[in-house]
């Protein structure tokens, strides 16, 4: 019995371009010496793109998933074929983070159609009789520096039946007016989204007010674009028929991994939007959309 494990020195596993990824490969061998045909380690970063079934056909989506883009690839051998003693063996390693030529290390992001992922994989080759061992471990990349910085760009809004688009029977809508503001539409990703809204008046009882965080992923290829918006998270800021004329705070922390600084490249784009959703007691809802820009700094 033998197990492989990767332990990184940094507990939070967050690295920046140019950093050294340092750690140890831990080989645990129970019951005697461990013979192997070499241990190799690969550090790689890949952008996976996928077309959604909605924008292209099902079959196309299935076959035509775009070619992954490799941002980083760095193989190295950390042990020559040989034997490892019984018990725990730690093999240290260090890998500098340098992108492949012409590529940038984008921030880690896990979306639906776009995935930016960085992995360390260790493989131990073994003789025919034994299965090869493998272990992989994700680490996270954050920008070291970014040209575009967050700056306060306050957004005020006012929602009332008049401002709604795409409504057929305006008479059926209860009279209401909700005013508010977002502190900024250009937000540092580590800071919360802040703002407030006030229900000035509303005929119908309100059931809930929510903020929806939406990602808009665009995959580009020779045949054209595929743009999809999906929900990341939904945060309720008001529950029940709230008091009128009192400012209710808007506050949302951006989830890690599922958000990254707004990104636009030749092949794909990752953008974010916020929806303010007012749900009335009869489950009718009103949504107001705000595109936002996320930055690292």
């Amino acid at each position, binding site marked *: 019995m033998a197990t492989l494990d990767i332990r990184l020195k940094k*507990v*939070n*596993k967050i690295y920046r371009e140019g950093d050294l990824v340092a750690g140890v490969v831990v080989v645990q061998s129970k019951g005697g010496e461990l013979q192997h045909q070499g241990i190799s380690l690969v550090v790689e970063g890949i952008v996976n793109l996928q077309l959604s079934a909605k924008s292209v056909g099902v079959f196309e989506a299935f076959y035509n998933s775009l070619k992954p883009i490799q941002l980083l690839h760095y193989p190295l051998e950390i042990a020559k074929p040989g034997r490892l003693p019984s018990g725990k063996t730690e093999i240290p390693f260090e890998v500098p983070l340098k992108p492949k030529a012409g590529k940038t290390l984008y921030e880690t992001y*896990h979306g639906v159609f776009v995935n930016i*992922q960085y*992995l360390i994989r260790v493989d131990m080759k073994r003789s025919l009789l034994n299965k090869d061992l493998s*272990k*992989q*471990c*994700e680490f*996270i990349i954050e920008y070291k520096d970014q040209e575009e910085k967050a700056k306060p760009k306050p957004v005020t809004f006012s929602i009332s039946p008049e401002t709604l688009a795409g409504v057929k029977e305006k008479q059926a809508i209860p009279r209401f007016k909700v005013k508010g503001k977002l502190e900024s539409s250009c937000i540092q990703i580590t800071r919360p989204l802040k703002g407030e809204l006030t229900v000035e008046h509303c005929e119908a*009882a*309100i059931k809930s*007010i929510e903020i929806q965080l939406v990602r808009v992923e665009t995959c580009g290829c020779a045949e054209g674009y595929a743009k999809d918006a999906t929900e990341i*998270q*939904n*945060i*309720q*800021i*008001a*529950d*029940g*028929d*709230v*008091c009128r004329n*009192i*400012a*209710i*705070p808007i*506050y*949302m*922390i951006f*989830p*890690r*991994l599922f958000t990254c600084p707004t990104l636009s490249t030749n092949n794909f784009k990752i953008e974010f939007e916020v929806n303010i959703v007012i749900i009335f007691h009869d489950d009718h809802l009103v949504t107001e959309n705000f595109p936002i820009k996320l930055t690292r700094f």
Partner: protein
Amino acid sequence: MASYEWFTSRRNYELEWQKKCLPSQPATNHPLKGITVTEIKQAETKGTPFRSKAPQKADFIDPLSSGDPLSADGAINLAFDGADPLSRFAAEALPATKARSGSEKKISSTSADLDETFEPWNAKKAGILAKYTTSEKLSITTSFLSASDKERVVIKSQAQVTTVTDKVRNRLEQLDDFEEGSVKEMMNLSQQDYVKRIEELNQALITAWEQDQRVKSLKIAIQCSKLLADTSVIMFYPSKFVLITDILDTFGRLVYDRLLEKAQYFPPGSTRPVRLPANFTPADVPESAKETCRNWFFKIASIRELIPRLYVECAILKSYSFLTSGEYADALKRLAWMTRGIGDPLVAVYARCYLSRVGILVAPNIRDHILPCFDDFLATFSQLQSDSVQNVLAAQKMEMPQYLTLFSPALDWILQCLAHRASDATLTATLEKCRQQCNNALLLNSIMSAFQPQFIASRATLFTEMIRECEDQGFPKHLLQQSLGRCLVVAETPEDQKLSVLNEVWKSVVKLKNPGDYITCAEVWIEFVVKHFGKREVNKILADIIKHMTPDRAFEDHYGRLQSIVSKILTHMQDFSQVFSLDKFLPFLDMFQRESIKVEVCKTVLEAFCKYQQEMVNDPVVINAMMFLCKTIHDSVNALTLDDEKRVIASLLSGFIRRVSFGRDFEQQLSFYVEARASFSNLDPVLITLIQSVNSLSMETRRVVKGNHSRKTAAFVRACAAYSFITIPSLQSVYAQLQLYLQSGQVALLNQCFSQADAFFKTAISRIPELPNTLETDGKVRSSEPFLLEYISNFVSTLLVTPDSPEAGVLYLLRGLLNVLQDYTWDPSSDARIIAYVRVLAALSAFSQEEYLYHVDKVDANDAMYGSDPKFLAEVKSTTDTLTNQVLSHLKTLSAPEMEKRKITLAMDFLNTVIAHSDLGNPAMGTLAANLWALIQRSGQADAKLMKRLASYVQSKASSGERGFQSLASQLKLEVGSTV
């Protein structure tokens, strides 16, 4: 059988007395002076705070020396400045405790600012749980309780989970799973079931945590807090809040403890991980623990629903201390702001309550969030009128007043946090705000119960106005009156406001129709009246209460409150002549018509009387009233009354009897005792008290006439004796009877009532055979013999001063006693009878002296009566001879080896008596003593020290040339030498 004789030594007590007195010498040194002289330093170092240095003197003030009569003398004062051991210890302990309390202070710096004036939440919990109950069916929504579902949420095996994202995804899936999938609603739970379920959830949370299923425990916490959004059984909501926040507290504690455990770090220069100190700063926390902590907060921030997000973040608020130091204030403020999003006013106010509850625990100094909480509450107060609330109330068939009371616990708590240590200005500002924004009864009530009573009291008039003006909106005003009353009772109301406040309040109280409402108010306000007003007002109020409570016998339902009114009056009106001069007090007591309650109340009064009445009472009004109450209590005693109960009652009655005194009017005093005896005949202890009191009454009489009784006083003391004589037989305990006979006899003798004394003694002797063999004292059964021995010694000593009655023979009382002793059924395994004989022997030796050891003033004892008449002496001698023979023959019977010990003890006792009282010059006595000594010596069982002391005593007597001692000494010495 060889007969022995007893020869009494002649003694000159006067001479012996003089010899015994030691020569006095002037003292130059204080006998208690300490040997070491100590210097006390207030040491800065914590280690050894106290070191004694011999030569140095300290100017240290002895706590005993101030007001010490000894210190008046300068010389002694000088000699006394060494420390006494107690103050030395105290000085030693002081720095130590200081050091400890210092470190404690550091540790509990967070809680240091909460003193005992802040009523903790735990104290309120029980009250809330008891108050807000329901008989409606409840429902609970959870995925953790139904057995079939239990295993569904087990964490998926994480072995194959490789990447961070997978892990996160997995957890999120589980969250989703719980949100959509396995959730079940359990309907139709009774309140008990519901409480049980919640307790199960609590257990599930802890178990999950212990099994490292942190996601599951988080889910449980979230589900629990979700329950707080549900107001379907609104009456139960406050209790639900208490139960669920308990679970959340547990969760918060678990998270914090886990992080603390994870946050072990390596102190510089050490390789062993150490737990964080209690007062760590975020800089001490290792990165890994911070990361875990951050993950918790990220996870909670992504909870979809508002109420669970708010509550769970509150619950783990304490863990912010791992991240940054200033986080609390911001977080609290943000959370306070977040509560605005809660639409239901009741849910919102309780969320605020939880927030301030957590806030005051983790950061008692941070108050910024409390005022916004309160302001928001005021701002959203109009919500109460909104349709949604009205609909809920209508659906649950609840009245507005009832609904409003649901707010009280939360509001009280928020206001308490707000008012705690707040400046007067803040309070005034808050009050003003309330008044302007919504002058509501509910709010006013909470303010009165939360703010310091002194603050309320100094604005008493203002508050009465506010109460009058406020729109009651269903919140009953009498509750306001009660709250105000409670404040005014504990604090000082400005003098000029008292009367107007009382008038204002009472005007509205009088109008209350419901006797229940009325009496609760009256109960509170009576204390205010008793405290600050005279008896006229109290009387008025009492009259009013009677008027309100009498119709339809309303008092029957409110005995508890009425009782508390009585005890409040008594606590503050300690002068009983005043209490009973209230014409309405007794009619008030008459309202207690149920027997048991009536007795209770009488007891309360009597207890107060015994406690507060320091001076003697002679006011007939008080005495009559008290007698009436006492009789009520006394008559309640029956065969079923418990012993303890009887004892309490008896001590209360005795306390009353002892406090009645008519001063010099002894006859009235006696007639009071006669009356008391007639009334309290069932209780032995009370009768005993009465007899003792009568005895002391005759002694008092004797003191007044200085022993020279006139005809009138003589008749009076005889009457007293007669009282005792006829009262004693009605006691049940023979033991008490014997004591009292002897005592009363002594008193009679002192008062020169010879025939009475004779009668007492005679009866006492005749009662001895009836003394049971065992006595029960303090619940333990003991043999009565030690008592009897003691009693006989006492009795015989009394007889020494008692002159023989001219009609009876010589020493007939003593003979009678001896006869009784002879016939008494002694315990066959004890020598009590013989020990008694030895005592009597000693006493008889005293009887045959020319002049007795002591006398009663103005009473001639037998020495004067007989003048050492040879006939008398012969009588005495024949008695002593008989006794000696009895003793010796008894000693012979104790021949069995197992009785050796008894025999020797007895022999030793006898030998002592022989040496002390008999004439050793007489060869017979000398031989007897020597034989006894030999007997004791041979057995080797006696106490060697005792023997040595005896020998040396004899030696010293011999060397001072006492007759007969030389020869004895030579015999004793020889034998002592042979053994030592």
